[in-house]
């Protein structure tokens, strides 16, 4: 009997609402134990709801089955190679989940009095110190909730710093290779973005930069190594230029995994750095969060850091006392509730303890080795012709290929290649980014992968290109084996259906 569909394809998507039946339930709540008057005796009737929301009505076994089965419709890092460029899909140690779940962490109320949260505050302080050392900058705020939140913080810090010097500036520079959050953050912070060009070695085009640096420039945002996976060799000069013009230098730390223990943004001259704990520091990505985006800053930026800040005080000679410092008159204020994504801090601190100075340096080394090896493998033979590397030099932890010749010669777009990779059991690289590279494929293997994984991935690319020599149809209609096949994304935006319709 021939297969027409895979078992998962044969299973139609049904939501939990479509599995509901009136009267079914999972929760059994405790008895009230107290008087139970009609609610309208306690709250004016006009403030009460008429009908409860139409939540699912399903017993526990069916809830478990529903989400278990759904989970298998995801590809995940714990099942296979996930070379999604710029995302640092490195192993998520389960040890970190274990320590984060300890009741002393997981069940600690955020408003607990500091005297009864010394362990948590000390952990935060230790993480601050560790990140400061890794970044080469003296002060850290853990508050931002992700990289983009860190960027916004950095720009607001820049604004506060400049305002304190009586300056108001309007522009923020960012290379054309920068990540989308950079310009979006700039706008949210009330600045105007000015794009800086990239030179033929993949770094900042220095002439363009010189032309654009002036007294209106508040900040330059840079990723280094940048999103091409290349280290900007002119960084010292760039820093000097910006500082001379009175601006701040912001480091987008999404690519920190390339340089841990090898080079430090602070030493490069950066004033503000964000660190994506969900990238270099192994917080699981969770299908789109949670993460955390702590920032490390130089002395001159410190006064403006968000409130509250975790500090270590002397406890009248009784050892240290860890506290939340709210008394920060120049602070930009809060960026969110409470103290930040503490659960993420626990995981990342456990990771730092596990690897230590030696392990972090080794992780970056292996990440760089893996990327260069895979780049070399893909530069061989036909693949190297169809999918040339965008900038032909050693890369750091990732590299970018261009699918332009492939598209031209084989009729295969980068998207097709990506979709066909799904059939080979691989998560595709980041595609069509950075914008600068036509038909871009951005590949970041991370230190997690074995040589065998890298070889298998390279072979899959070679096989897909070989298939395409016969014609582009196979890849163009790919994928074939995924739970659903190519989806109509345009429809979803034109006529958005964003919730279950209840019948």
């Amino acid at each position, binding site marked *: 009997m021939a297969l027409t569909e895979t078992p998962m394809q044969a299973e139609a998507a049904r939501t939990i609402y479509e599995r509901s039946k009136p009267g079914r339930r999972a929760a059994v709540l405790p008895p009230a134990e107290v008087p139970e008057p009609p609610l309208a005796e306690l709250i004016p009737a006009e403030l*009460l709801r008429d009908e409860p929301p139409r939540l699912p009505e*399903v017993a*526990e076994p069916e809830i478990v089955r529903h989400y278990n089965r759904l989970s298998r419709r995801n*590809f995940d890092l714990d099942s296979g190679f996930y070379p999604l460029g710029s995302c640092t899909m490195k192993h998520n140690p389960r040890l970190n989940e274990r320590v984060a779940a300890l009741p002393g962490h997981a069940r600690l109320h955020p408003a607990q009095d500091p005297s009864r949260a010394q362990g948590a505050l000390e952990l935060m302080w230790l993480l601050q110190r560790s990140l400061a050392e890794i970044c080469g900058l003296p002060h850290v705020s853990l508050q931002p909730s992700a990289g983009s939140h860190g960027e916004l913080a950095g720009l607001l810090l820049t604004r506060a710093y400049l305002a304190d010097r009586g300056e108001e500036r309007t522009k923020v520079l960012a290379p054309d290779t920068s990540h989308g959050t950079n310009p979006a953050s700039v706008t*949210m912070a009330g600045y105007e973005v000015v794009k800086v060009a990239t030179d033929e070695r993949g770094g900042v085009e220095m002439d363009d930069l010189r032309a654009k640096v002036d007294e209106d420039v508040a900040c330059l945002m840079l990723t280094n190594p940048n999103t091409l996976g290349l280290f900007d060799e002119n960084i010292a000069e760039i820093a000097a230029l910006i500082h001379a013009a009175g601006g701040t230098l912001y480091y987008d730390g999404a690519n920190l995994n390339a340089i841990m223990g090898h080079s430090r943004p602070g030493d490069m001259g950066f004033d503000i750095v964000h660190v994506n704990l969900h990238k270099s520091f192994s917080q699981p990505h969770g299908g789109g969060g949670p993460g955390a985006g702590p920032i490390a800053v130089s002395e001159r930026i410190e006064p403006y850091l968000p409130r509250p800040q975790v500090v270590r005080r002397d406890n009248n000679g009784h050892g240290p006392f860890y506290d939340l410092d709210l008394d920060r008159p120049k602070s930009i204020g809060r960026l969110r*509730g*409470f103290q930040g994504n503490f659960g993420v801090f626990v995981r990342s601190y456990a990771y730092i*303890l596990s690897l230590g100075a030696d392990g972090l340096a080794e992780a970056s*080394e292996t990440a760089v080795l893996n990327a260069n090896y895979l780049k070399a493998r893909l530069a061989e033979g036909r693949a190297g012709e169809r999918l040339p590397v965008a900038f032909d030099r050693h890369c750091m932890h990732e590299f970018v290929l261009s699918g332009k010749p492939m598209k031209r010669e084989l009729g295969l777009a980068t998207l097709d290649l990506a979709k066909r990779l799904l059939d080979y059991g691989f998560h595709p690289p980041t595609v069509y980014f950075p914008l600068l590279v036509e038909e871009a494929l951005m590949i970041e293997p991370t230190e997690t992968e074995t040589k065998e994984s890298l070889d298998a991935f390279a072979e899959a690319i070679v096989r897909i290109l070989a298939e395409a020599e016969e014609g582009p149809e196979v890849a163009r209609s790919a994928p074939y084996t995924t739970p659903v096949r190519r989806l109509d994304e345009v429809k979803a935006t034109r006529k958005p259906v964003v919730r279950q319709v209840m019948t």
Partner: protein
Amino acid sequence: MSRYTSATPADRAEMLAAIGVDSVADLFEQIPAPLRLREPLALDEGLGEAEVFERLAALAARNGDADEEVCFVGAGMYDHYVPAIVDAIAQRSEFLTPYTPYQPEISQGGLQVMFEFQTAMSELTALPVSNAGLYEGPSSVAAAGYLAMGATKRRRFVVSRGLHPHSRETLATYAVGYGAEVVEVGLRGGETDAEALAAAVDAETAAVFLQSPNFLGAIERVETLGAAAKEHGALLVVACDPMTLGVLKPPGEQGADIALGEGQPLGNRLDFGGPSFGFFCATEEQIRRMPGRIAGETEDVDGRRGFVLALQTREQHIRREKATHNICTAQALNSLAAMVHLAWLGREGYRELGELLVRRTAYARERLAAVPGVELLHEAPVARELAVRLDAPVDRVLAKVAAARGIAAGYPLGRDYPEYDDGLLVAITERRTKAEIDDLAEALGAAIAAEREGVAA
């Protein structure tokens, strides 16, 4: 080679040969020499798993967590019982370890959960559109401000003092960036001062921000208060507590344009404040201005139902500086936990839980009000949190009750409201039994009495 990497010396040699360099150090030569670290980082050497565990456990042991203390503290995050299936499902690798679902064909699990979550939030708030979640509560308030500016082209926010202090502060922080003015309206008898609010809203007002129940626990008359916003064409933004919406009139039925809030009570741990998530719902009109990810339904080439990230043209990775928000990594796993918790509660359970909270809170209010030295801070209706005044220094009473009885009695209002420096905010969840409420009353009474007599209880 560490436990998390696999390159053996033999692998390394082969790989370096393929690359055509002699050592990994060669690859790092693109970093200018002066910027290359000569010394190892000043961190300890790596530790084995058991040692790391012991270190972290020792830190955890120095916290007074909600297993150790009976927790009446709320102020935005609450000690609800999270059923075991939430952890079991959220810890599945397939949900825990993927990235944002950029490749929908292999991300249907996560995308469908988002879609289900959006449906649940839409039902809770009675607004048609929900995103898949933002960082947390207060920054969602700031996001609403950004949306309102875009929608109205105005730059003035009128904010109730009943809005969570962290939300007000976060909104103010962001407003400095995107250039808006924040005007605060005070409280009266625990509720937002309706007259002052009406007076504050004008034709330049982009949005009015309310919270219900507000920070003092009072259920606001949102519809009445919102009239001023409607009148001047400002958006009405209502922050709400998702655990109360089984019984309280939802913002969508009270004229809210945007309903949002802190999602922690749904399926998320206390975690000393995070990670949790912020929910964000709005009217159809705002759908293309929404911040954050939104999953949408569609079809594959064979006509199979499927889900994708919809309306991506709002987002930073497509629209860059013109995006409706800068968010990228959000809190997907936390929203998933909320969805599983809500499925577990179910339609009936969710309502019952709301009722339970209201009734236990009413009981606690009555019980505490009867304690000598305790009086109600306001008499407005409450749902799950209540405010009292103590006739003794709040911090001393709290310390005493914690030390003597292992009770975290509540949140000292003086931290944020100088005008209520004798105020205590007491939160109720289904975990706080009648016996614990009775204990609290007794313990507070004893501590206040002792303070008044200047005796250590």
